[in-house]
């Protein structure tokens, strides 16, 4: 994975962060990500992120659950091993509704959580680069990716102007790797990027 250079600015309030995001974007810098201690509503739109499709995935999983339950039960009770329960019809849909509903919910919930973990690359024993340890406490941390043409000093001054109270430059990998947090991270140096 490539090691990239980031200028990282920390903000301490939403009301400073929002105008800063706007300024940084209009100035043409590329925001890698903003790390916040809680979900800041509207920040995704301010950063120009598209809406998530997780709901759609959830709907598809739900329909899968409904079909599995309906298909499974009707096959079992009408074709594989039809049993006579007090003379009632073999295809007794009303009595199956509870299980069909439960499987709909189960498939949807399990599927969505797994999809969420997959999309966000969340799993035990994974490790990522954290730009600031207080991003999960009280700092709003904006990481701006530098290209070969970026003037780092200009960018730092720009962030300072936008209201960041702590600014530094970090070389980091953006992906994930296996590991635990008790050991210091080891970056895989990629010489090609350093030359550029």
């Amino acid at each position, binding site marked *: 994975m490539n090691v990239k250079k980031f200028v990282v600015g920390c903000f301490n309030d939403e009301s400073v962060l929002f105008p800063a995001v706007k300024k940084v974007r209009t100035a043409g810098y590329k925001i890698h990500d903003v790390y916040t*201690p809680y979900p800041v509503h509207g920040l995704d739109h301010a950063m120009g992120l598209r809406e998530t499709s997780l709901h759609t995935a959830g709907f598809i999983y739900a329909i899968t659950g409904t079909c599995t339950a309906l298909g499974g039960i009707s096959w079992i009770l009408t074709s594989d091993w039809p049993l006579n329960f007090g003379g009632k019809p073999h295809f007794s849909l009303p009595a199956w509704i509870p299980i069909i509903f439960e499987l709909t919910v189960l498939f949807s919930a399990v599927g969505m959580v797994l999809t969420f973990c997959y999309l966000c690359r969340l799993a035990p024993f994974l490790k990522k680069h954290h730009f600031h340890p207080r991003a999960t406490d009280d700092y709003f941390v904006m990481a701006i990716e530098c290209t070969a043409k970026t003037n780092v000093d200009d960018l730092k001054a720009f962030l300072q102007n936008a209201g960041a109270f702590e600014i530094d430059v970090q070389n980091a990998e953006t992906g994930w790797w296996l590991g635990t947090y008790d050991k210091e991270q080891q970056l895989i140096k990629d010489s090609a990027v350093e030359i550029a």
Partner: protein
Amino acid sequence: MHLKYESQLREPLVYGDKNFHQVTEDICRPIEVKPSKLWYIGFFISVALLMFGVYSVYSEVVYGVGQWNLNKTVGWGWDITNFVWWVGIGHAGTLISAILLLFRQGWRTGVNRAAEAMTIFAVMCAGQFPIWHMGRVWMAFFVMPYPNTRGPLWVNFNSPLLWDVFAISTYFTVSLLFWYSGLLPDFGTIRDRAKTKLRKKLYGIAAFSWTGSTKHWQRHEALSLVLAGLSTPLVLSVHTIVSFDFATSVIPGWHTTIFPPYFVAGAIFSGFAMVQTLMVVLRKVYGLQDYITIGHIEAMNKVIVLTGSIVGCAYITELFMGWYSQNKYEAYTFLYSRGNLFSPYGWSYWGMMACNVISPQIFWFRKMRRNVFVTFFMSIIVNIGMWFERFVIIVTSLYRDYLPSSWSVYYSPTIFEIGFYMGTFGLFFTCFFLFSKYFPVIAIAEIKHVLKTSGESYKDAVGDIEVQKVEEFAHEYAH
């Protein structure tokens, strides 16, 4: 100036002069210091109770269900009473986290984490009873539908008992997922504060490498909302299905169409009572009075008085129908076996009435709703009452059959039935003590989310804005 503001008329959700860092400090403190002596005492009592339960179950498995005082007439006794009781308690957590999320009730943030944990532990306890009641528990997997060498002989999908298997296991799974996905950001917070290597490692594993990225938060919000939307009908369906275990039978006292709403209301009633029992202690022991405020307690007491009254309404409807149906078996069950104080189990019916219907009416008074001692006392009373309710429904409907020749002698539990019940208390509190020591008992990220709009010190700043005219406000802030 924060981007949103909330009127001062609304009670603050977080008291004191807090900033984000202070919130983290306050909630993480119990996890980062050594547990108190009281914690160890409580924990060891719980483990001892759990051991008693394990021994009782061991004796039941080795010597059979005959270790319990069940007989041919009273086939369900303490075991199913306790099952329904625990499942009912397990309803408040999801109600708080899901339904109140959909209704945008801000006060859920202070109590949802612990209430969800309580839900999960309560459902774990509930599950023990039907499983061990099977007797030959090594064949418990027969309740799952799978292609087998016995035909294949499938389970009966038309049976409420099987619906229960699906409902309870789905409910447990979904609650667990909901709870854990909410915990990820908070584990991230603890991981990033950790001083020791072991903590960094374990909380790092538990946090699934959470970073707090905006995209991740966006997906997380979507996930929570959809899970809430799924859990809301789920929580209603679970106790509905539990009530079907009784309502679809033809036993007088069970064969009742009002069971589903009546059971759901009862579940919320007992669940909130258990949440109150735990919260009143938790906020005191961990000094979290700023986060679990009197306002939170009052809100939950309002739910208790509402659902208690719904349950009371159901009791009276049942009595009325016992007379109005002019069915002598119904009348015998409702008006003699239950309503008559001097019938063998009349005491349990009137105990239930006193605990569930009469005493919660005290919460019509604001002073009582906001009194911590009254709340704690009442929460215990309500849970005793709700245990009586299940006992009344099960035992008073069963102990006198249609034929006097098959009437049972007075059913009372053996030490092993009591031990099993005590054991589930042990399981519940062992889990809860571990939870309160190693997990953030309040959702840190969610408190931060409401802090700037509903925190006491931030609301004070709103006073100046509230006296402004609309035009002035619009000119200054909403241009």
